[in-house]
């Protein structure tokens, strides 16, 4: 019997070995894949177990946390939700995160390895440090001025600091309150459905995720290309431009709103926004130079991040001469985000140097100690400094005596360019009103702000839709807010 007891004991030992091997399989080998299973609630529970870090504007948090004591415990709250929605995005237990809440999630939720006191500390202790804070570059007053300027109209504003690329304002309208998407309740699903079915698309971030035909504001780029390429040497010499201008190879003729565009000088054409002059100028500059300059300003750049991604602004690279003519006045396939057009104005204001825009000044620990700073970013030469200097003159003239008078600020030099962009099939849509500008207070050494405003106002009378009328006052309010801060 002894031998058989031993056999039975070996059998039991095999059972034990099987249990141990299987436990190792589940707890070690397959552990990661089980942890990552979307049906496993643990990651979500851990994520919401502690308060989320805050997003700061002007030193004050624009976000907060509410302790619900439920399974997914802490819910996000927003101060001035609609005002900052295009920057913060939302943080929802159901629908995830967007914008800064998404791209800075590691810092805000506390999982970023930089937050750990020592390397691998969090893995070892299985703890998670309190969420860090994200300090934005936004100027609270400029942001509010832009949001209030848009009022109930559809549109977007982007403002940057030309010398650094810091984004000072990023506004979209209509907006929404991201608080309604926090939490788990049935209200969240309802709000999500409501926001998504809204024809005005309040969750669309028009400042960075929507491209518009830039219209006449693109003439800044065309001018830069012409000056850089040496096609125009004297701003005040008459250009050899017919009006109306027949698009090369077609029977379509381009006309102007202003009568004196025929053979107008570049200065007059810029100040009065002559389509004929710039369409011809684009063709004279040629596709290669136009594309090179547009790309130097940031067009066609894929995967721009501020740190969340920005929609690609485009300038078509294969065009016939008629298409090039239209593209040069910001029509045809030319499309730009408001942020891109703010960058164009900023490059002019900054002596031709383009600083990549960014939104996060620095990230800090919960205690306030800095984790990472934005740091200096390499500038790109968008045009010659001489070209920039001449363009500043032209843009200043627009505000002083041309289409952009509404943007003038006492005690400051303001340069701008209006635009009224046609769109839709056969240009049937109500045009978009554009204004891009920069401003330098008399006491400052350099321009402090560059701004782009687009208003897509379907309520206004078609004739009243002009960049100078609708968009320039908003740009002016934003620039004033920055200059007086």
């Amino acid at each position, binding site marked *: *019997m*002894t*031998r*058989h*007891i*031993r*056999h*039975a*004991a070996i*059998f*039991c*030992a095999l*059972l*034990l070995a*099987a*249990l*141990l091997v*299987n*436990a*190792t399989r*589940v*707890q*070690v080998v*397959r*552990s*990661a*894949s*089980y*942890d990552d*299973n*979307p*049906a*496993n*609630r*643990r990651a979500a*529970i851990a994520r919401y177990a502690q308060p989320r870090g805050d997003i700061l504007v002007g030193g004050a948090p624009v976000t907060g946390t509410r302790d619900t004591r439920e399974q997914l415990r802490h819910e996000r709250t927003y101060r001035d939700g609609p005002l900052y929605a295009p920057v913060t995005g939302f943080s929802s237990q159901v629908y995830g995160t967007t914008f800064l809440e998404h791209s800075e999630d590691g810092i805000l939720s506390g999982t970023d390895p930089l937050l750990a006191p020592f390397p691998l500390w969090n893995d070892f202790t*299985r703890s998670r440090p309190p969420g860090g804070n994200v300090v934005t570059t936004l100027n609270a007053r400029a942001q509010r001025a832009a949001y209030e300027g848009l009022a109930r109209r559809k549109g977007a504003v982007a403002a940057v600091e030309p010398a650094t690329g810091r984004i000072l304002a990023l506004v979209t309208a209509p907006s929404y309150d991201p608080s309604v998407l926090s939490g788990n309740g049935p209200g969240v699903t309802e709000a999500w459905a409501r926001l998504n079915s809204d024809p005005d698309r309040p969750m669309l971030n028009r400042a960075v995720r929507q491209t518009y035909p830039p219209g006449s504001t693109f003439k800044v780029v065309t001018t830069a290309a012409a000056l850089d390429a040496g096609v125009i040497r004297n701003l005040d010499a008459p250009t050899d431009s017919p009006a109306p201008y027949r698009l090369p190879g077609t029977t379509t003729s381009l006309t102007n709103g202003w009568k004196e565009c025929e053979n107008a000088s570049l200065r007059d054409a810029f100040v009065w926004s002559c389509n004929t002059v710039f369409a011809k100028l684009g063709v004279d500059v040629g596709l290669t130079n136009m594309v090179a300059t547009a790309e130097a300003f940031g067009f066609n750049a894929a995967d721009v991040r501020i740190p969340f991604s920005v929609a690609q602004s485009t300038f078509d690279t294969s065009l016939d001469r008629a298409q090039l003519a239209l593209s040069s006045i910001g029509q045809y396939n030319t499309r730009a985000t408001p942020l891109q057009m703010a960058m164009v104005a900023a490059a002019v204001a900054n002596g031709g140097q383009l600083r990549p825009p960014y939104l996060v000044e620095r990230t800090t620990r919960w205690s306030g100690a800095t984790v990472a700073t934005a740091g200096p970013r390499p500038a790109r030469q968008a045009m010659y400094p001489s070209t920039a200097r001449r363009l500043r003159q032209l843009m200043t003239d627009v505000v002083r005596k041309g289409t952009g008078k509404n943007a003038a600020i006492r005690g400051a030099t303001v340069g701008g360019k209006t635009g009224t962009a046609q769109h839709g099939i056969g240009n049937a849509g109500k045009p978009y009103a554009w204004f891009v500008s920069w401003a330098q207070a008399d006491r400052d050494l350099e321009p402090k702000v560059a701004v782009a405003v687009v208003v897509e106002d379907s309520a206004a009378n078609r004739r009243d839709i002009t960049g100078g009328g609708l968009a320039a006052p908003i740009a002016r309010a934003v620039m004033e807010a920055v200059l007086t801060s």
Partner: protein
Amino acid sequence: MTQAGAEALTQARDGSDPAVRLPRRRGIELALIVLAVLLSVYGYCAVGLARNGAVPPGAAGYGAGLGVLALLAHLTVRWRAPHADPLLLPIAVLLNGIGLVLIYRLDLETPGDRAAPTQLVWSTLGVALFLFVVAALRDHRVLQRYAYVSVVAALALLTLPIFFPAVNGARIWIRIAGFSIQPGEFAKVLLAVFFAAYLAANRTALAYAGRKIWWMQLPTGRVLGPIVAIWLLSVGVLVLERDLGTSLLFFGLFVVMLYVATGRTGWIAVGLLLAVLGAVAVGRLEPHVHSRVEDWLHPFASIEAGQGPNQLAQSLFSFAAGGTLGTGLGLGHSVLIGFAVKSDFILATAGEELGLAGLSALFLLYGLLVERGYRAGLALRDPFGRLLAVGLASIVALQVFVIAGGVTGLIPLTGMAMPFLAQGGSSVVTNWAIVALLIRVSDSARRQYDGKEAP
């Protein structure tokens, strides 16, 4: 048989040389018990510290309660079974203590349902039964006389729940005065006693009579008849009650004991054949069982179907979340498993919060318990004692395998209590009875030690 055993015992007593006598090691037992109680109290405090940042107010009372129970058990062993194996009692105390800690920890997640106090009452009852068995049963061979009483009692206990309403699909509980009792738990000890006595008496006939087919020696119908009938009856009752875990346990116990008693590989072949037939038949006929097998093969099928994770998937998530070192007591989320998290799935909490390290330690504790049982069986000279020791140890081994394998996805899940750990009064009382009997047989084994086979 009894006489032969008694003779062997007398011989061993008279003829043993004091020089080869085994040390009693009661002091070591006491030291290990103190360690086991301290570990349990530590676990209790760790839960409180992790959850509320303070030692829970009941820690002293809990430690004192467990300590007094363990001390009483130790004193009784000193008094009545001074030669007993010194590891058995500390292992039982430690497992029971950890079980109470885990249940207390899960009570914090379910404020409306506090199971730990009840479990402590049941543990007290279990220890009381332990004291009674160790004190009253002077010699395990006495049990041999009650073989047929045991089997009748076992069948009665198994049949009883049929007359009570089913709970969660299984008809295995009876409710008396607010307490749920699972009579099947007690039945397994009684069946082990019966199997041991019957096989000890008839093992020669079982082993050497009968026809030989190929290499297998088949036993004669006369000796086989009663045992198969009783086995079929018990399994039939279990299938009717839909308690497949216990059914599997009985079957395994039956095959192991038959093999040990007769040494016939034919029994294993017959056993496996019956097992396969039974499994296929039950799997086909019982939708309940069929779904368990499906869950085992595809634990995440319900997730893919968009219905969320089922209990087994949640259990696997729980084990996986523990990783190597665990989250720490009180910091896991095994409560996501939901229903039966304190009973059938208690091991998931251990796996998540103590990690693979803690889980392996638990498995090795069970392994050690089983090993001590087998060792007593090897050292004993009387066949009944040997079979009883092997049977009791095998109950623990099989039960641990069936439920631990079930919740970790090794085998299809069948509802069963993890010995000592899981919530369930009948289970904890039965396990204390098993440990009491193992103490009793190991006392005999070590007392009659002849210097050859060290238990």
